[in-house]
């Protein structure tokens, strides 16, 4: 620039390199905080485990795919902070909701019901998962009955759990909804809940048989 004229970046070049760095870092902080419309950096009181973060991100991506049908372009998104009830910071829970449509209620009996969960790359060793099957209890609108069991995940891939008792109980009352809560102790990972298309999402296989009627009906 002509001598004496002001050049925005030239002033910086005149500084000693350590001072330059301080100026640039201060500029970076100010720039990020102002763009996020934050007066100062937030103080984080309840950091969340990485496992929970990953689950939350998958949930956000799944929601984004649901809304606009395509893998979402990067956009703002807020994931509600994992509420304290989600176990200690070293574990996190995931809730799966299954809705059954019992068209054949009357003349059918449930032989077997199996829950399938696809685990993404857990580290080696056995990983305990507490599984709670929650279902509305007839005694009261907010009551739920819970069947609790444990699942040991040894490797990545499909893990199965027999949920016949819970599904039979739902079926006998014609109740359509089964909530499965998975508590992953140690926050080491979570089942695949989004991405990979829906081929790897959790599902329940139910085998049923029509009750043979004593009267032979010819039809």
């Amino acid at each position: 620039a002509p001598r004496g004229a002001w050049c925005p970046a030239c002033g910086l070049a005149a500084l000693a390199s350590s001072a330059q760095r301080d100026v640039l870092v201060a500029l970076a902080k100010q720039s990020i905080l102002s763009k996020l419309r934050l007066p100062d950096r937030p103080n984080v009181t309840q950091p969340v485990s990485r496992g929970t973060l990953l689950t939350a991100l998958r949930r956000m991506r799944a929601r984004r795919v649901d809304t606009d049908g395509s893998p979402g372009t990067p956009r703002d998104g807020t994931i509600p902070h994992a509420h304290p009830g989600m176990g200690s910071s070293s574990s996190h829970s995931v809730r799966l909701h299954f809705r059954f449509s019992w068209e054949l209620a009357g003349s059918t009996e449930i032989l077997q019901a199996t829950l399938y969960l696809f685990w993404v790359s857990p580290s080696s060793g056995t990983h305990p998962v507490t599984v709670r099957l929650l279902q509305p209890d007839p005694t009261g609108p907010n009551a739920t009955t819970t069947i609790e069991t444990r699942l040991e995940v040894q490797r990545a891939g499909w893990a199965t759990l027999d949920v016949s008792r819970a599904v039979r109980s739902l079926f006998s009352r014609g109740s359509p909804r089964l909530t499965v809560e998975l508590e992953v102790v140690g926050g080491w990972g979570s089942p695949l809940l989004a991405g990979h298309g829906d081929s790897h999402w959790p599902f329940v296989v139910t085998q049923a048989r029509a009750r043979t009627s004593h009267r032979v009906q010819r039809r």
Partner: protein
Amino acid sequence: SIDCSGDSRMCCRKEFFVDFKEIGWEDWIIQPEGYHMNYCVGLCPLHMAGIPGLAASFHTAVLNLIKANNADAAMDSCCVPTQRRPLSLLYYDRDSNIVKTDIPNMIVDACGCT
């Protein structure tokens, strides 16, 4: 565009990485690990004016000669960003919610002369 190296004086892009761990921000900014706060610096001699990056065509060369010969007629020329991209952040806000946001035009990819 040119990346600044050594003591190049011409308009170029200077890389500058702010590591969030170094500035104590890694607890509230979850991703990424840092911010590439690159910036543009250097001289824009009049014969380079108006051409982001380096002159590349005959037309441009002629234009430059005209400018260089009529130095007093030409305006000042500055070294500015010619390509930028957003900074994607995953961070905790003041209510400890986890927020993902893309701040547009935060990362300079190329510089050139106005």
